[in-house]
């Protein structure tokens, strides 16, 4: 598995992939990442988040406007919720989970189907580590939830909401997954960490 840096040629032909660019019929890496030749995907090691339709995000209401709410997504783009489609009345400071409708031409993330989240804690991680925190077939997130008894909502924007259970342990585990995301055997090590903590409790 080869690590590529921005500007490295990854394909001798033009294929459109996220985190790459095409020049003169060749495809190049635009970020530091690992190129999966079979799946034709460049996995960023330190990527930014590019919102996709339907993705779940966690955000904080930072502004109330006449017809909309502006949502902080800890990303280069702001989120927007159209007031007339919103379920409950929202206020500045509220935490919400929502789905991405689209990234509009002003590069604002239009959000839909929001749900207000009460209490809990927010931690921000690098969006490129989110897939590892969820795990293949949700294995990692299930393990975390069972091991800590916390409710965990992972936004694809890298913002995570944690409530109840052993929040400190959940936080530590998530930060560790972020640190070791690209190594093998991580799922086992996290399971050990959670079990050890249970014994100590």
């Amino acid at each position, binding site marked *: 598995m080869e690590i590529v840096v921005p500007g490295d040629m990854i394909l001798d032909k033009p294929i459109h992939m996220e985190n790459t660019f095409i020049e003169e019929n060749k495809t190049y890496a635009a970020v530091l990442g690992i190129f999966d030749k079979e799946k034709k995907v460049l996995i960023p090691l330190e990527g930014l988040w590019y919102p996709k339709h339907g993705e779940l995000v966690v955000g904080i209401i*930072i502004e109330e406007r006449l017809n909309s709410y502006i949502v*902080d997504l*800890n990303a280069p783009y702001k989120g927007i919720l159209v007031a007339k489609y919103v379920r409950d009345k929202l206020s*500045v*400071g509220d935490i919400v989970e929502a789905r991405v409708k689209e990234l509009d031409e002003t590069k604002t993330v239009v959000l839909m189907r929001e749900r207000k989240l009460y209490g809990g*804690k*927010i931690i921000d991680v690098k969006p490129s580590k989110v897939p590892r925190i969820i795990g293949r077939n949700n294995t990692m997130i299930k393990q975390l939830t069972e091991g800590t008894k916390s409710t965990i909502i992972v936004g694809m924007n890298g913002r995570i909401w944690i409530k109840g259970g052993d*929040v400190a342990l959940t*936080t530590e585990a998530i930060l560790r997954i972020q640190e070791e995301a690209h190594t093998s055997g991580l799922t086992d090590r996290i399971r050990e960490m959670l079990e050890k903590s249970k014994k100590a409790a």
Partner: protein
Amino acid sequence: MQSVNSIKSTYIKELLNNGVRSGRGFFEYRKISVVRDIIPNAEGSAQVDLGATKVLVGVKLDIGEPMPDKPNEGNIITSAELLPLASADFDIGPPSPEAIELARVVDRGIRAANLIDTSSLFIEDGKVWSVFIDIYIMNYDGNLFDASTLASVAALTNTRMPKYENGNVIREGKLGKLKVNNIVTSCTYAKVGKTIMLDPDGDEESVMDARLTIANDETYIRAMQKGLSGSFKEHEINNLIERSFEKSKDLRSIINKLNSD
């Protein structure tokens, strides 16, 4: 951003006021590492890592004029820069009141403890050495005071004395060391609601109501600074003074270990 920070802070406040501090005791320092002579171009230098807070101090000596009321003593000029690369909340521009306060408090501790023998900085009539202590904050995660004091003192304990010969400053060759008479260290406490803790990290500082820095050597309190708009009760302060005399033993031994290595 206000509301984003206030979400993050509500949770930290709850934890702290319930007696829970993640990863350490309420009067425990985070991991400290001190490396001296990290900038050989400077006459003296040190880098301190206190948790994720990273501070670089450079010491340079130049020829200067003595203060009119102290004609036989050299000068100490301490500055601090909260570099914009250290935190999203630090802006470019002239030193903020926070940077100025930091520099002046560190300076006060060093000066009051007579750490530098300023009479040894005298060269001749109208000419003395000025010691420039520059505190460079490279990464902010709370408690810049203790990290900066420790780095400044570490740098000063191994600072080269340039030579002044025939109107020239000679910074190379075999040089003596700046004469250091004393060691001072500082302990900084944060108060969150009714809870007091030593060595606040960035999250804890974002929710603190008041802050107290106590600089002392083996015998005396040398400087104190209370910060922010909250308050301390008298007995709280007395208690923190006792703790500082106790805790400073560990900090002093870090400096002494550097000298013996």
